[in-house]
């Protein structure tokens, strides 16, 4: 007979429950950093595009690329098909470029970076020093360090603050730097791959990003190299009325491997802020990329005031045979989420996986999912999506699985489950399934239910209060996805799952 302690250990860390108690339901990262900033004038136009390009010291071809994207963007309309509603965004009433004053001349190393900035990341739990483990994840201190290194590229509003472990990575041949640096240092790679997965004219937000992206991360893993440590980017929006447009480009050359983590937070503000990022991943023959995100942008307050509009385009292209991509995302923040990390399975026997937990509480709205585009023979994909709605939130899974006529023996398995907590919220599932050859096998299952009363009763009987009990059940519901996360993220995610549901019961 299992005791309560065993039960907790099995499903969820005790700390999760304790953290819930400690947190008191507030957004943990809602503070801001008081730092002197330099802004480009409000609004977006060709001059602003040129200005951003100039600030980054870009070559002419890059400026032209941006300008042509801007031209296209002006012809486009904002998409309205997602199940989200928000006041019309005035794209001319915000800043597209904001950087700390101290960055007028870019610091040569982390030692030269404004201590205030370093303190910001320290406070966020991401100290920008080369340490053995990613600190700040509660409990990480107790874990054996054993060489678990994580290199971090920290992006603050529009600029990259610094990238750790660069020299050690260089020894392995890995290039990990900000994209602005890559444009200058490795133009041949950027030129070859930028926009090759998400074309400049892909969609409204991606096109805007192509025109005005200010920074982001660049990764190149040479053939046959297993990246010696996990790479990560931490995005922080600090300035008010400022949009963040970052661009990430990851190239895994033949036979290489990398695990990449992404985290993000923003201060608590009354007005909504736009975040429109693009992530492009190119995976060559026999290479493998794991991309994990814990998205914890400010979700707005209980009345839905403020928060981040997270309109993101993420896509991986498995170009070579046996290439493999695994997307894992924990979406707990943002007022509005519009995000569909996708996989183009072009190479034969390539594989795509998508694991997602999306939690929407209070007035949050999330419309998220994936696309699995099977083009090559014997390609496989798997989708596991767990959506949780509470408060007055709306949570939508939107996904597509396409088996092209040439994708012989393609396989897909999709499982999307929704959990509703309370009678004021909504959970929706919008899958598209397109099977264009008969050797392909596609299976799709979806369920929607509420938190099981029997499970809650069981927990309550053992002395947990309702909120703890719900957190426990929800963690169990998400288990399949949590297990797919790298260890540090898994722990953080478990806590987030509980915290995000604060105040959703009773």
């Amino acid at each position, binding site marked *: 007979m299992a005791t309560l302690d065993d039960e907790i250990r099995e499903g969820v860390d005790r700390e999760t429950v304790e953290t819930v108690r400690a947190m008191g339901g507030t957004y943990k990262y809602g503070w801001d950093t008081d730092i002197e900033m330099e802004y480009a004038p409000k609004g977006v136009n060709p001059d602003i595009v040129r200005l951003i390009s100039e600030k980054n010291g870009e070559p002419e071809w890059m400026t032209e690329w941006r300008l042509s994207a801007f031209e296209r963007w002006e012809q486009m309309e904002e998409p309205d098909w997602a199940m989200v509603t928000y006041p019309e965004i005035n794209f001319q009433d915000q800043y597209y470029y904001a950087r700390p004053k101290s960055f007028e001349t870019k610091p040569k190393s982390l030692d030269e970076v404004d201590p205030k900035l370093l303190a910001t990341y320290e406070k966020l739990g991401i100290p920008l020093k080369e340490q053995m483990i990613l600190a700040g994840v509660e409990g990480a201190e107790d874990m054996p360090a054993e060489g678990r290194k994580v290199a971090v590229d920290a992006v603050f509003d529009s600029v990259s603050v610094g990238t750790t472990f660069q020299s050690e990575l260089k020894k392995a041949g890995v290039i990990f730097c900000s994209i602005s640096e890559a444009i200058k240092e490795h133009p041949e790679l950027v030129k070859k791959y930028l926009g090759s997965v998400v074309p400049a004219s892909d969609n409204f937000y991606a096109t805007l990003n192509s025109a005005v992206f200010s920074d982001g991360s660049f990764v190149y893993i040479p053939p046959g190299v297993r990246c010696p440590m996990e790479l990560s980017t931490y995005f922080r929006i600090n300035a008010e009325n400022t949009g963040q447009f970052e661009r990430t480009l990851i190239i895994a050359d033949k036979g290489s491997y990398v695990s990449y983590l992404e985290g993000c937070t923003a201060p608590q503000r009354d007005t909504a802020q736009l975040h429109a990022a693009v992530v492009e991943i190119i995976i060559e023959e026999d290479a493998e990329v794991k991309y994990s995100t814990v998205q914890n942008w400010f979700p707005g307050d209980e009345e839905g005031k403020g928060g981040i509009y997270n309109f993101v385009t993420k896509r991986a292209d498995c170009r070579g045979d046996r290439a493999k991509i695994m997307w894992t995302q924990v979406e707990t923040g943002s007022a509005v989420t519009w995000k569909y990390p996708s996989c183009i399975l072009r190479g034969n026997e390539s594989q795509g996986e998508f694991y997602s937990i999306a939690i929407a509480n209070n007035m949050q709205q999330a419309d998220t999912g994936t696309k699995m585009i099977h083009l090559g023979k014997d390609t496989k994909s798997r989708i596991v999506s767990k959506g949780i709605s509470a408060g007055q939130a709306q949570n939508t899974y939107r996904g597509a699985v396409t088996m092209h006529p040439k994708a012989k023996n393609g396989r897909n398995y999709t499982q999307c489950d929704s959990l509703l907590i309370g009678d004021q919220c909504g*959970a929706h599932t919008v899958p598209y399934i397109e099977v264009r050859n008969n050797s392909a096998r596609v299976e799709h299952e979806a369920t929607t*239910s509420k938190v099981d009363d029997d499970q809650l009763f069981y927990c309550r009987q053992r002395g947990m209060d309702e909120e703890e009990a719900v957190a426990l059940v929800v963690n169990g519901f998400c288990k399949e996805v949590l297990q797919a996360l790298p260890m540090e993220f898994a722990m953080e995610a478990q806590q987030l799952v509980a915290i995000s549901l604060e105040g959703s019961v009773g």
Partner: protein
Amino acid sequence: MAIKRAQLKQQKQDALAARQPVLSMPEGGEWITAARKDAAGRLDAMGLPIRRDEYWKYTRPDAFTSAAPEAAALADDAGAQVFEGVDVLTVVFRDGAFDADASDALALDGVEISRLADAAQADIHWAKDIYGALETAGQDPVERPLAALNTAYATDGLVIRATGAAAKPIHVVYERSSDTSDVVLHHVIKVEEGASVTLLETGAAGARANTVTEVTVADTAAFHHVRSQGRDQERQLLTHMFARLGSESTFKSFTLTPNGKMTRNECIMELTGDDAIAHVAGALMADGKDVHQDDTIFITHDAVNCESRQVFKKVLSNGATGVFQGKILVKQGAQKTDGYQISQSLLLDEDSQFLAKPELEIYADDVACSHGSTSGAIDEDALYYLRARGIPHRKAQDLMVLAFLAEAVDEIESEELREAILRRIRLWLDLEDDL
């Protein structure tokens, strides 16, 4: 370059401008003229569907929006005799025109039945509350302009009111002798409290047909519907079934589609009374690269403790296309909803395709809703099992097709009708002699 929303709107208006001139509103009494004019107004505001419409993502609406139908050669065996041997009241429409000689007298115990063309001559009629009303409600949240077109321009149909238990099923037989007929028919069915009626439909109504059926099922009433859409290779058919269900009522509809160049069956159901039950099922046998079939279902749960069930099975061969768009919408407060949906396809060759969009939209927490969708080739192991027992390949495959489709046919409540449909499927699969 993305097409702008204003351009799309214009394209819809252009599509309507191309179709409208060949339509003429029939003369009629006050009630129906008002309903027709309202519908024409709705149609004007919406325009006609175009290829870029999300709701027509997998089916090209062109076949239904062109000014004249494509010529459709007549079929040898349209399969109108599906319900042979079942005691029914037969009503025949030939190319959209009521065929009095071939029809039984419009009289049946427990039911009032007349032609729409006759009911339309009166200035007031009970059908006023239903005709076009359910179609109007069905325009939100998704526009269905071709249903509004039907309401405005339908020439005939049946008007049925069940006041008790109907003595036998009403069988509407659609015959066609023209390869260019363009048919618009509209039926109204009112099942009063505690009453019950069964509607059977067979055949293809015309070279091209657009039919709408509006059904209200009052508290504790029951409506059963079984149809076979005719083994008619070249016809193009669009059907809309709008249903509104009261408390403890039952609605069950089954459709067999054996081929046809173009078929789109839309079923829009609204569960407005507690404890209602709505089942809709379909079986498709599609053979040939010209065959395109689409089931589009929209079920709205707006009451407590209701059950809805969708079971769709599609067998696709020689390049046929099968489409399933099914949506369950559970409104706030529609607690204890039990919603189930399954769509499965069997692809018998490389060129056939299955396109599905099974949707859930849920605003109540105490519900159990699920959907499943699978697609793939025939199970080789099962085929091997049958062949190992001496059954030839072709026959083994047909047996598996029969078993696959039977799961949808099983949704028909009446054993007699279920058997009639199964018999027909066996016949078409050439299995009749052996079973």
